[in-house]
């Protein structure tokens, strides 16, 4: 029995009582599937961390429940050790593969991509509507990430999707912790995450903020335009902060 088949059997047999670890594995696999759908050659460790952070912190937009991840504030943005462990696990199962690996000083850099058996797993998993909904959500967020990753003015020291670090830095919850320089502080999610939730709520009902002479139905945002507005806000904040620091 190959690793991927074993993994598939585990997932299908335990779908009803799925634990956090398996849920997380699935979601990371969906992330790679979405990246593959966008023709990205690979996803770096940094890229995976930042994309999953955005997928998770934006989940109230879709009111979707994802696996719980503990992110902390580190220099290169939100970081969850659970993600790295899961990446290693998925590599061991041949669901994703390491494309490149380098060590520089005390840091290790790796790029990953989904394998054929990983793609096949995603097909099987998303036969379940709940899983398919998660995949669709992740695909939507990744499409917006794909839009913004090449934006003018993002940090040139990073490549590809890693450039969204600059936008993640502006994400309200993370930004508040960053400005306090509270390194290693756990980033709150769910009900405790008031700042990002406040922004999402504001966008979801933004037409109500308009003066009465506006056609409010015209300015009502849908899921995609909420995400775009959210990212545009992060981008504007980034440009503004960059200008101040010049």
């Amino acid at each position, binding site marked *: 029995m190959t690793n991927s088949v074993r993994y598939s059997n585990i997932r299908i047999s335990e779908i009803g009582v799925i634990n956090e670890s398996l849920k997380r594995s699935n979601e990371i696999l969906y992330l790679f599937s979405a990246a593959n759908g966008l023709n990205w050659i690979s996803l770096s460790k940094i890229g995976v961390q930042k994309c999953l952070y955005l997928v998770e912190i934006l989940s109230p937009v879709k009111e979707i429940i994802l696996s719980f991840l503990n992110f902390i504030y580190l220099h290169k943005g939100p970081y969850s050790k659970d993600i790295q462990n899961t990446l290693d696990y998925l590599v061991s199962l041949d669901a994703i593969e390491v494309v490149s690996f380098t060590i520089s000083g005390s840091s290790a850099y790796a790029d990953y991509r989904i394998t054929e058996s990983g793609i096949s797993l995603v097909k099987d998993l998303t036969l379940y509507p709940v899983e398919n909904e998660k995949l669709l959500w992740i695909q939507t967020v990744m499409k917006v990430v794909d839009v913004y990753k*090449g934006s003018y003015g993002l940090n040139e020291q990073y490549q590809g999707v890693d450039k969204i670090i600059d936008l993640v830095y502006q994400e309200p919850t993370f930004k508040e912790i960053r400005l306090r320089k509270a390194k290693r502080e756990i980033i709150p999610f769910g009900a405790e995450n008031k700042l990002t939730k*406040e922004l999402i709520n*504001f966008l979801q009902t933004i037409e109500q903020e308009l003066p009465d002479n506006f056609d409010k139905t015209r*300015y009502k945002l849908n899921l995609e*335009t909420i995400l775009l*507005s959210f990212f545009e*806000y992060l981008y504007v904040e980034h440009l503004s902060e960059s200008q101040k620091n010049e």
Partner: protein
Amino acid sequence: MNKAEILTIVMNSPVLEVARETGFDSIELAKFFLKLENLLKRHIPYAEIGDKFYFLLALTVEESDEEMNIFEEDIFVQKIKDGLLDKDNILFINSNGKLVNQGQQGLISDYVQAADFSRDKNLIVIFVEYTSVHIFVNGTPMVYI
């Protein structure tokens, strides 16, 4: 959270505006817009064009008969760098960046013809006239730069 800033983004975002007007896929529009903005800011001398523009329309006439993707063709960037945009240069682009073959459309050489074409063909048309960029959605001028 700066509510006024967010409100401004939502009310004035060119992408959201075009999406509202046309019903086009907003994410595809945003992708196109940001790539184009990126291209402009990197290569055009008058790149400080502010936030309010949607698409660029620029190509020399002799090249506009050819199929090309403005994001992939170096020649397009070179034309921009060389300042070879003038009022006779027009092209029509879809939201994926692919050009519509102008040879089949006939030459459009002024603002009014561009507006008419946009209305007749139900296309977003961007007409470049030196440093001015005119954008039409269904014949309606949206933004001037």
